[in-house]
């Protein structure tokens, strides 16, 4: 048998027989669903965390002076956010996923849902730092110029700081998306058939490792390369709009 026939046989065995290509498709679908929804949770929660931390850093002194419960809430919120960031960034995401599945959401049987929550909460920590980093990258003088004109803290943020910070934030956010796709490859730990798990399942059935695992790797690679190209386009466009 020459190598080409062997390749065709292997291919048929792994993907065609028993419609096993459908597993790959299903796995890819789950990977994409988990990534996208986790990112949405991550962005929403991340913005809230970044808002609390940035407000505490930049406006805390003002609020402290004016007194009242707002400052107390802000201070408690800031402490909680810091604790959250420390825990999430200080533990492996697989462990977080397992804790979510076997302890916190033990009554939820839908693994995809659990993975979305776990990866979303994980991603929020990184997205929060992306937003905060973007805000902090803007020169303090911009903030002072806004405040000196009479803009309050929030108005300064929305009219002056965020329109500039978004150019720093967007590429990093896109990068987080790319990272997250690869991170979700451990979803199989909680019984989710994601892309990685699909490849592994085929390997278990056919006892042929090369074809399914390389195929899975190539699919990840293809997606990441494609998204990286998009990211480069985005960066180019942002640079152009920079004055």
């Amino acid at each position, binding site marked *: 048998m020459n190598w080409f026939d062997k390749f065709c046989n292997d291919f048929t065995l792994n993907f065609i027989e028993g419609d096993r290509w459908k597993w790959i498709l299903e796995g890819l679908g789950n990977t994409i669903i988990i990534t996208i929804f986790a990112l949405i949770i991550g962005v929403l929660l991340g913005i809230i965390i970044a808002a609390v931390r940035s407000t505490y850093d930049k406006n805390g002194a003002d609020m402290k*002076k004016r007194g009242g419960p707002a400052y107390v809430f802000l201070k408690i919120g800031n402490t909680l956010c810091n604790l959250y960031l420390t825990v999430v960034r200080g533990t492996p995401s697989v462990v977080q996923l397992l804790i979510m599945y076997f302890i916190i959401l033990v009554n939820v049987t839908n693994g995809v849902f659990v993975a979305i929550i776990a990866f979303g909460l994980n991603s929020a920590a990184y997205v929060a730092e992306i937003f905060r980093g973007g805000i902090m990258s803007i020169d303090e003088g*911009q903030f002072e*110029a806004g*405040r000196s*004109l009479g803009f309050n803290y929030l108005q300064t943020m929305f009219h*002056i700081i965020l329109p500039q910070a978004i150019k720093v934030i967007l590429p990093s956010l896109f990068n987080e998306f790319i990272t997250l796709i690869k991170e979700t490859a451990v979803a199989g730990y909680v019984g989710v058939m994601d892309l990685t798990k699909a490849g592994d399942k085929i390997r278990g059935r056919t006892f042929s490792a090369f074809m399914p695992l390389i195929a899975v790797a190539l699919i990840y690679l293809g997606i990441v390369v494609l998204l990286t190209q998009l990211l480069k386009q985005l960066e180019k466009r942002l640079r152009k709009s920079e*004055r």
Partner: protein
Amino acid sequence: MEEALIKVRNLKKHYNGGKVKALDGIDIDIHQGEVVVVVGPSGSGKSTFLRSLNLLEQPTEGEIIFDGEDINAKDADINKHRQKMGMVFQHFNLFPHKTVLGNITLAPIQLKKIPKPEAEAQAMKLLNMVHLEDKATNYPSQLSGGQKQRIAIARALAMEPTVMLFDEPTSALDPEMVGEVLDIMKDLAKSGMTMVVVTHEMGFAKEVGTRVIFIDHGQIKEENTPKEFFNNPKDPRLQDFLSKVLI
């Protein structure tokens, strides 16, 4: 004499739990139409003083009465007061994502709710005043330092402040651009604007200032008319300072 526009009482700003006394008990009255020039060695507290006037720096202690109201009081609406106090920074701090026109009209449109066409018409008048009408649609990065600072002055004036604060407005400029900015400030002084100006430009202090104050170690060590201040300085530290800057 009529009531002072700004009254500063026992103003203190301490850092590191009192180890650094950036301001150590400042008292001064600033009247309508005055041009108060603030000079002093580097690190003496000039910026801290100026930035305390609109609370960009939160004082450790003291009162700032502006237009009859203590703006450092707990319940004072500082944002409202800041609209009446224009500020010009050493490094311009123009908004890079906005055109010149956008820079000038942002605050009037957002804060005073002035309709855009009206705000732009007013901005064009201000641009005419700083001789930069032709730059209306440019972005800050397309301007020279002197042009940027003139736009920054126009931006502050757009809120129709009752006092203008300048923190070393020409210190970041190439020497050949200092004059164009000082000229605008002179025009502004002539128009009757109340101004507090931190600067090393002694020529400006002599020519335009109605009063010059010398700050050293966070205290006002001397204040006088420009003539007396420069011709007959009494404080030894001021004599030393002037001998260094007036070569």
